[in-house]
Each structure stands twice: as C-alpha cells, then as structure tokens.
C-alpha cells in the first residue's frame, strides 16, 4: 500500500494547523501554568440552564430533533434576535440550529462558495475561516486591519480587496483576538461599499452580547444588508455553554434551506440535550448575561490598564474577552515573546500572528479569569519584559 499520507486530501494536508495549537501543546507539557490563553468563559453554565438539560435527560429526550432544530428553540431564537438586535427572522424558514457557531460557519461557506470564489477575511481574526474556505475549494483573501483603526474593517480596505471573484465578506466582530468592534457608523460605510455588489456577508456575532460601553449593532440592521447577510452565533460565550456545542445561523431562507441540506447529511441534528437547555437560556438567561458582562467589563479595565502601565500599549477592546497588547517594544516577535514568556514565567498567552499576519507584534490575552489570576499573570509578564528589555 502507498504511504497513507499520499491518500489524504491535498488541501487538508497542505493547510497548516492552527497557530493556537502549537502553544497549546507546549503549555500542556508544563505544570502550574498561569494561563491567559483560553477562548472560553471561566463561568460555569448557570444552574437553571444546566438543570433543564438534566431534566431533559430524565424525561428521556434522547432522540434526534428536526434537522433545523427544535421548533420551540427556533421560535425563542427569533424572539431573542428581535429583542436584542432588532432583526427579525422567521423561525420556520430563516433559522438553523447547529453544533456550535463553528458548524454554522462551515455550513455557510460550503453552501455558498464555489471553487475559485474569493472570501474576504479581515485579520487578525479567529483561526477557522481560512481553512474552512480552503476545504471548500475557495480562496480566502485576508484583509489586514490596523491597530490605529482599533482593528476595524474600513471601507477603503474593503474596496481594495474586492475583485470580480469576491463572493463573501466575513465580518468577525466583536473580534477574537483583538476585542475590536464595528460601530454603527463603521458598518454604514461598509454597507455603502457592498450595496452595489452581489457580495454576501457572513457576520460572526458570537461575542455580540459581550459588548461594553454600548450595544452591539449587527450589519443585518443596516439598510440593504439584511437580505445578503447570514448571522452566525451561539450559546458558548454569552451563556458560558462552550461544552454544550450549540450555535445557530439566521438569514435568507434560500441560504438557510441549503445550509440545512448540508447539515442534514453531515450532522443530522444538533445535540438534543443542549437544545433543551438553550430554550431555557433564551427564556430566562438575560440576567445571567448581564451579570457576566459586568464582571468581564471590570476585568477588562484591570488588564488593559495593567498592560499600558507596564509599557505594552494596549488599545481599549470594546468587545469579546480579549486584550491585544502590542509587544513590539520588546524587540521580540509574537512567537518568541510567547515562547520565552511560557518558559521563563510559565504564563501562557497566544501570539497575535496565530490569527493572521497582521497580528504580528501583538499577543492575545484572555480576561476570562478572576481578577486575582489576571493580576498574577500581569505581574509575571511585567517581570518578563523587564528581563528582555
């Protein structure tokens, strides 16, 4: 038999592993690591939500659900989207429940991208977009966003990236890893560029609820953008439900119908247990979100001030739970910084370039930790930069 590697799909082989993974492997080998590396809440899922999950098992709710998800859940999602983001979706035809927001992204890309289509990916951004586009035979085209714009996508940057082959713009805001957000006026400018085109928008709004100093605005709210936009989101970040693996997509019914077809063959239906818990989250979880958001907001101020005080310039992130300080003053690359920090102080953070080349010179530090843990890590980072400077 031939070497197994030769039998594997070339695109899969050639796609580099996630830059996060490398540091994960390094950190996993060490004991007592103080980490600011995670991309998930430190909170446990609120008890009333967990309890409904448990009860659903007790009641024997252990079967498949309809492909698009339990109808009751889609009805609640429809109400939630209207209540929180002023966008309306028909629960029966314009919403699909998925295995995490990640599956929704994958479904959308596989549903709309033809081989050779270009997909615009503002960077730095979450690591999954490019590989998923590659796997679908598309071409991911990075757009480098800049720290001086607080990593917002500008109309000018977008214009320059558009070609006749452009099929999709991915809009990953509030942003992982930078914490950057798009304000209404920023989205208006983007909309102005898109209006005359046939470009679809995949708006990844998984961190929408974690927006500080103001309300999240979805691009679907902007005039002329609703019909071309699919919003993907999920329960992981806002309700601290990462392990339940539950997300959703809302958008044009033709796209959702075709996404449901792909989902039907690949997944069948999202976990039933998680869907029942999610109904409870949407019905009675608004207060939980508010409490967690308030807590993240306080930590956000502590970590941003901490970095600026020690001389690592850090713009104020207005969303998600990451700070993205600049480490260029140390003379190290992002990877050198992270590796040396891990080895000498046992503090784990993620190099900014793991999220695209424009993240070089930055590190992603999560503040999904207690203030005590954040302070401990900040002290260690300060010791480290004194050593290297």
């Amino acid at each position, binding site marked *: 038999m031939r070497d197994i590697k030769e039998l594997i799909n070339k695109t899969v082989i050639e796609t580099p592993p996630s830059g*996060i993974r490398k540091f*994960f492997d390094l950190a*996993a080998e060490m004991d007592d690591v103080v980490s600011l590396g*995670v991309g998930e809440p*430190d909170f446990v899922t609120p008890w009333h939500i967990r309890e409904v999950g448990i009860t659903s098992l007790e009641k024997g709710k252990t079967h498949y659900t309809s492909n698009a998800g339990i109808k009751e859940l889609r009805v609640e999602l429809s109400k939630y989207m209207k209540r929180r983001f002023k966008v309306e979706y028909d629960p029966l035809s314009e919403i699909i429940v998925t295995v995490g927001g990640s599956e929704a992204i994958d479904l959308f890309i596989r549903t709309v991208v033809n081989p050779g289509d270009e997909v615009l990916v503002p960077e730095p951004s979450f690591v999954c977009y490019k590989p998923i586009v590659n796997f679908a035979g598309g071409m991911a085209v990075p757009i480098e966003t800049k720290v001086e714009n607080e990593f917002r996508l500008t109309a000018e940057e977008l214009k320059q990236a558009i070609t006749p082959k452009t099929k999709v713009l991915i809009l990953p805001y509030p942003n992982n890893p930078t914490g950057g957000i798009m304000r209404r006026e920023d989205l208006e400018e983007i909309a102005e560029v898109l209006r005359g085109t046939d470009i679809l928008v995949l708006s990844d709004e998984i961190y929408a609820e974690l927006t500080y100093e103001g309300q999240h605005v979805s691009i679907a709210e902007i005039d002329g953008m609703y019909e071309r936009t699919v919003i993907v989101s999920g329960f992981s970040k806002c309700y601290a439900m990462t392990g339940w693996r539950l997300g959703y997509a809302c958008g044009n019914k033709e796209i959702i119908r075709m996404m449901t077809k792909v989902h039907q063959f690949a997944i069948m239906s999202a976990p039933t247990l998680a869907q029942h818990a999610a109904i409870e989250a949407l019905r009675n979880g608004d207060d939980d979100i508010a409490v967690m958001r308030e807590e993240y907001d306080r930590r956000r101020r*502590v970590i941003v001030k901490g970095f600026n005080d020690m001389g690592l310039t850090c713009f104020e992130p207005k969303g998600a739970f990451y700070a993205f300080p600049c480490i260029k003053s140390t003379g190290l690359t992002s990877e050198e910084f992270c590796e040396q920090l891990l080895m000498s102080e046992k503090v784990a953070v993620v190099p900014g370039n793991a999220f695209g080349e424009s993240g070089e010179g930055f590190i992603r530090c999560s503040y999904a930790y207690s203030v*005590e843990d954040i302070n401990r890590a900040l002290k260690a980072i300060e010791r480290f930069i004194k050593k290297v400077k």
Partner: protein
Amino acid sequence: MEKEILIQELVKIIHKNCKLSVEEIATMLNTTTVAVAELIDELEKDGTIKGYGAKINWDNVKGSNTVTAYIELKVTPQMTNGFDRIAERIYQFPQVTSLNLMSGSYDFGVTIEGDNLKEISLFVSQHLAPMESVISTATHFVLKRYKNDGVIYAGLPEDDREAIS
C-alpha cells in the same frame, strides 16, 4: 457613573473580595482612587460597611472545633417596642453570630457558635430559654457546611479548561 450605582457596584466588589486595593477597585469601576477611597470612607462611617473579613471554611482549620447551631425562637412581643428589645437582649451575647426576625412559624432565627455541643446546649438552656418573653426554642446543629454567604465550601470545582484554546 451615578453615585448610587457606583455604591452598588463598589459594595458588590468588596463583598466578594475585600483584599483588592483601592487602585484595583478604581480601575474596575472606571473611576479615580480618590473617589473610591472617599466612598469607602463614607460607607464605613455611615455603617454600610460593617467590617472586613475573610470567608473561612472552619472545617479545614486544624484545631478548630467550632460547633454551629441554628435556633428557632418563639417569643411574646412586648407592647411598647415589639421585638426590638428582645432582640437587643439576645444579640449582646458574643456567642450569637447572627440574629434575624423571621416570618412564618417562629419569630427569631439565632445562629450560635460554641466549642462543643454541650456549650451550646447550656447556652440555650441557661440564657435563651429562661428569658421572660421566650415561649419555645428548637435547636438545630449544623452537620456540614455546603455553601455560606454565596461561597460554595463543598468540593470546589477546579478550572478544568485547557490552558490554551
């Protein structure tokens, strides 16, 4: 931030963790250290902040054999000052760690700490039960503390997240 909201936020923070420095609290609340220091001073003076203490799981403290009991107390309220005068006579005892007037089938909920069961029993029989206005007492001993003042004591969950994700 409005003062009332600022106070609400401030007391929530220090109720959870009074070890934080004034600087840290100021950063968390997006205000100045002077403002926080003044506010704390004010809250201490007007009796809103009644003190600072750690939340101790006494079961883990070697050599500490503190026994806690919860006592349901039924009393006859007095004409002029209702329950307050009786309460005053109960909370003066250092053994009484908390005292609340309750709705329902009894009047006062009294928490008492002592070195052993006997000490608590004696306290109830010698000091509480004989009080003029006390009609009856029912003493319940704490066997295991699971959660106290918002803190879970039993089997604290560890951070089981991966270091990087």
